[in-house]
């Protein structure tokens, strides 16, 4: 299946992916309206230290620990995409603790949030990939 991959060699640490992610999941049709004067909570995060940077988001593992650990069945796999049903999520954060990549995070509304490859928002295809100026984030099939 197509997944998001990150090539740290080309990541510039510009953080645009975070902003495109936040915009894509905001429900708004205007970036300024969506992001002006707020603190964003993107589902992709740039990790950077000592001149090295790369973006981290959900790997959509084939055997995901988060799904296994979810106590309410809020995390499920649909066609390989690990999705969250916020109505079922009770905010126990077990998934956050169990994700080895730190790709699951609180959403600010009680439930958790994670990258769902933009399948549920109006973009339809990962906004971070489209917004990356240097092809450091790609969305592709890999063997």
């Amino acid at each position, binding site marked *: 299946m197509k997944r998001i991959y990150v090539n740290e*060699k*080309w990541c*510039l*640490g*510009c*953080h*645009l992916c*975070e*902003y*495109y992610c936040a*915009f894509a999941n905001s429900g708004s049709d205007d*970036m*300024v309206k969506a*992001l*002006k*004067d707020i603190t964003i909570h993107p589902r992709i995060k740039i990790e950077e230290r000592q*001149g090295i940077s790369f973006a981290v988001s959900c790997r959509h593992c084939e055997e995901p620990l988060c799904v296994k650990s979810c106590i309410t069945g809020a995390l499920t796999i649909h066609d390989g995409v690990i999705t969250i049903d916020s109505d079922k999520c009770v905010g126990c954060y077990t998934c956050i603790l169990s994700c080895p990549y730190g790709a699951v995070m609180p959403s600010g509304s009680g439930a958790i949030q994670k990258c769902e490859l933009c399948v549920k928002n109006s973009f339809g295809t990962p906004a971070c990939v489209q*917004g990356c*100026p*240097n*092809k*450091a984030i790609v969305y592709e099939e890999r063997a």
Partner: protein
Amino acid sequence: MAVDFLYPPYEVIRNHDKCITCRVCERQCANEVTRYDPQHNRMISDDAKCVNCHRCVSLCPTRAIKIVKTDHTFKTNANWTGDTISAVYRQAGTGGVLLSSMGNPEAYPVYWDKMLINASQVTNPPIDPLREPMETKVFLGQKPDAVQRDEQGKLINNLAPQLELSTPVMFSAMSYGSISYNAHESLARAAQELEIYYNTGEGGLHEDFYKYGKNTIVQVASGRFGVYKDYLEAGAAIEIKMGQGAKPGIGGHLPGAKIVGDISKTRMIPEGSDAISPAPHHDIYSIEDLRQLVFSLKEATEYKKPVIVKIAAVHNVAAIASGIARSGADIIAIDGFRGGTGAAPTRIRDNVGIPIELALASVDERLRQEGIRGNVSIVVGGSIRNSADIVKAIALGADAVYIATSALLALGCHLCRSCQTGKCNWGIATQRPELVKRLNPEIGYQRLVNLITAWTHEIEEMMGGMGINSIEALRGNRLMLRGIGLTEKELQILGIKHAGE
């Protein structure tokens, strides 16, 4: 701090209604123009540091930034313009030679824009490149004076080594050092895919790029950086650089600060030492010396590779070219006064040399008058900006063109002309790793391939319009050009008629 009398030429205008303070402008500016003010949750700028490279403008996700030329002005003076006055202030402050990059930006005539291309009507059919074959393949190199046959009467292939180009465009010399590893990789990969050539420039050839040798022209300049047997053998052709359009008559200087790591290794000089290319080749003080270097290089490579001699377009270019055509060189490359550079003294860049259009016209005509046009191919560069320029160059008599500035533009260059600072925000004219990585060759090479593919389509369209279906029938076909707004003398030098004639 002493007053320097200099006012920032550009202003960074930010629309704070649109700015979401994502800080990408701050993170991406190597000149540190912009910073975030947490107290007011606003981005603030120091205009004085801005070189107008548009990196922030391009990456701003909400299009909140524009760069404008300042309207701050001196008292209006047609003679003492603001730039002229500021240059005096700058030199009075530093005591130094003014440095610039890229091509001559002054308002000299652009002859390409004063020539118009013909098309067929009625007496001769235009050819539709979508329906009929349209050929842009070119061979560069010496052609034999006479055919030879073996005892059975079969033709003997007595051609000198040739370069075969799928389309008459090559990427001209830009050294590793003046541009980045990723820029070189983009050029090399594009040349390979396009079946054309790129040129190493004078900085040697990085070991990673020997694999692109089939599409590489290796350059030998006065500094001889990185020149050794394997290097000469690595390329498809060898270019002797006698001069450069942006700075005829002077050499080059890559500061020691840039001679680090792979650059030092590739140039074969110690880290931190200045890379100085002398103004002349110190083994070439005259044309007979050039002949010796041409043949030394041919000896070293067993006469298997064509040798190019590159010169700057200067006043007596026709006579010089005539000498080169008799020197054993296979190809003459002529670089016009608008050609780019990674760094040149401003006064030289802006005042020395002549336009490539006139140089090409007079060289081609002179070689024909002397009956030696077949001895050499002619490649011209020095501001070939689009496919129409290429068609005009070929109709004037060029076999192919060299492009560099347009190739860099394809890679993202915004012609801010600040290469000499080494802080290229686009990852091209820099060696700083965090900047170099901004040019992903995967993107860069594809953009170069796109550009040349698009231009080739346009060349084919224009050729088809003229009823020409092979590029060699366009070469030197000056009847296909007409001048517009040119004097008798200019028309005479260009060897074309005026529109309406």
